[in-house]
């Protein structure tokens, strides 16, 4: 049967099997399908990051003076909880010696809260300023801050942009205290959002004698983007999730068309004694080699796209790319089998009449 392989090789070298055409078509439709789907996934992912990073996925419970800081901090150990911590509003705002903008709202916070605020920490024990305060006063991490009540160290800063998140923290200071005390609120930053988030938050509210009547308020740090992230539905309903089916079908069509374009040659060769299985093998080898070459080109392009354009979860992206590629690959082979199946030696005269 080695003559079949040699025949396939000769057909590739002589261009009879249209190898360039197949490689180019395959690379084109696979790469286009992959990139379009990756772009849309990237859009949805960016939306998700925006939702999460603007505080929409940071859930809060408010119950003044009843929130257990330790329990609240511990929640961050649970899966899909990124950070959690408790805060309490200080009645006395901080007043600096120089007063460019009035008093600074201040909050005492548990250790875990520093993670929720995503602070930049210099390591020198002190307080944390919002970046607005820091720049207004011209101080940064490690600097002393002159207050009316004395001097405090600036331990770090945090960002509080006005992207719809709760006001009151953009011109404020956080004063870390040990978690073993009572606070007003517990904040939980979660991703993805667990369904039982309210139950988790409720755990942090001290209820003496199991009193469930205690008033608790649930909210989000940013309520302007909705209580649920709608991107998941978008992700699962995106048109381009069908990219693998698309490449499968295009692959099948390509395989059939390539074989069909050679029907006279193939049928007449069957007619002089080459069996159908031998011919099918020959076609599979011819197209298979083109597909391997095409696949390596596609993988190289995919690697560039995934590494340089999309700063995201690589595994998911490669999974998308691989699925599209494999479907295209086997689509062409399937099309080859279907096309070849239709070539029968005794159809030869009919092809001629149709010409």
């Amino acid at each position: 049967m080695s003559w079949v392989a040699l025949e396939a090789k000769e057909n590739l070298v002589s261009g009879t099997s249209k190898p360039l055409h197949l490689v180019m078509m395959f690379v084109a439709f696979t790469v286009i399908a992959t990139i379009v789907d990756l772009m849309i996934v990237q859009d949805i992912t960016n939306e998700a990051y925006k939702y999460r990073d603007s505080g929409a996925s940071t859930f809060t419970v408010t119950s003044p003076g009843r929130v257990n800081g330790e329990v609240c901090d511990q929640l961050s150990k649970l899966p899909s909880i990124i950070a959690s911590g408790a805060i309490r509003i200080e009645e006395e705002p901080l007043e600096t010696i120089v007063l460019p903008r009035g008093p600074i709202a201040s909050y005492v916070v548990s250790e875990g809260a520093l993670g929720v605020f995503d602070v930049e920490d210099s390591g020198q024990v002190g307080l944390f300023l919002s970046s607005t305060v820091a720049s207004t006063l011209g101080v940064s991490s490690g600097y002393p801050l002159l207050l009316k009540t004395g001097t405090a160290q600036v331990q770090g800063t945090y960002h509080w942009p006005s992207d719809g998140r709760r006001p009151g923290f953009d011109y404020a200071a956080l004063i870390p205290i040990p978690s073993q005390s009572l606070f007003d609120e517990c904040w939980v930053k979660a991703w993805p959002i667990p369904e039982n988030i309210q139950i988790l938050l409720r755990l942090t509210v001290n209820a003496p004698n199991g009193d469930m009547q205690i008033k608790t308020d649930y909210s989000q740090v940013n309520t302007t983007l909705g209580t649920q992230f709608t991107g998941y539905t978008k992700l699962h309903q995106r048109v381009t999730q069908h990219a693998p089916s698309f490449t499968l079908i295009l692959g099948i069509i390509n395989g059939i068309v390539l074989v069909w374009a050679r029907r006279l040659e193939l049928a007449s060769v069957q007619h002089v004694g080459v069996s159908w299985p031998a011919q099918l093998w020959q076609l599979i080898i011819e197209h298979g080699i083109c597909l391997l070459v095409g696949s390596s080109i596609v993988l190289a392009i995919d690697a560039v796209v995934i590494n340089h354009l999309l700063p995201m979860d690589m595994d998911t992206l490669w999974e998308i790319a691989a699925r599209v590629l494999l479907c295209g690959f086997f689509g062409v082979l399937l099309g080859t089998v279907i096309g070849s199946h239709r070539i029968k030696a005794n159809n030869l005269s009919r092809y001629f009449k149709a010409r």
Partner: protein
Amino acid sequence: MQVKLDNIGHSFSGQPFLFRHLSLTLEPHRVYALVGPSGSGKSTLLSILTGWLDPTEGAVEYEGINRVGWVFQNPHGVAHRSAIDHVVLPLLARGLFRSDAVHRAKQLLNDFGLSSATYREFCELSGGEAQRLMLARGIAARPHLLLVDEPTAQLDIQTAQTVDACLGALIQRTTIVVIATHATSTREACSDIINLEKYT
């Protein structure tokens, strides 16, 4: 080894009979010229002989015929494969070793006056060379019955004669050959004549 036509007749659905009451026996080592004007049913009779088409009347009996070859009016080779590749392939498919197949193919090409074209691509061959190559390839498959449909119809008279000159090579190598034609030169190169006009 023979083919017996027993009172064959054919008409395409509802149309008048193309030919009728055709009875004869085709025998080995003879080349039959199948003649008649265009539309008289030459190709139709060839289709019946391959078994692709059932005659409206009568029956065809084959004795010891397993492989039937067919060479068409238009040569249909593979554009960018060499002449010898065309002839080697059916030999390989029959199970010959490559060296034997190449040797046999060269002999066949020589018999059909194609020695100088051995390594030329099919698309570079002239009409006469292409048609002779198709005959050589048809024979390489070793059919018991070789049917040739108007091999010279597309060729000018001189080129046609180069094809006719090869028919002798067919007689030696195949058992039974039937050539549909209306070229007088082809008819003269054949050993027997079947005139379809006589069977109406």
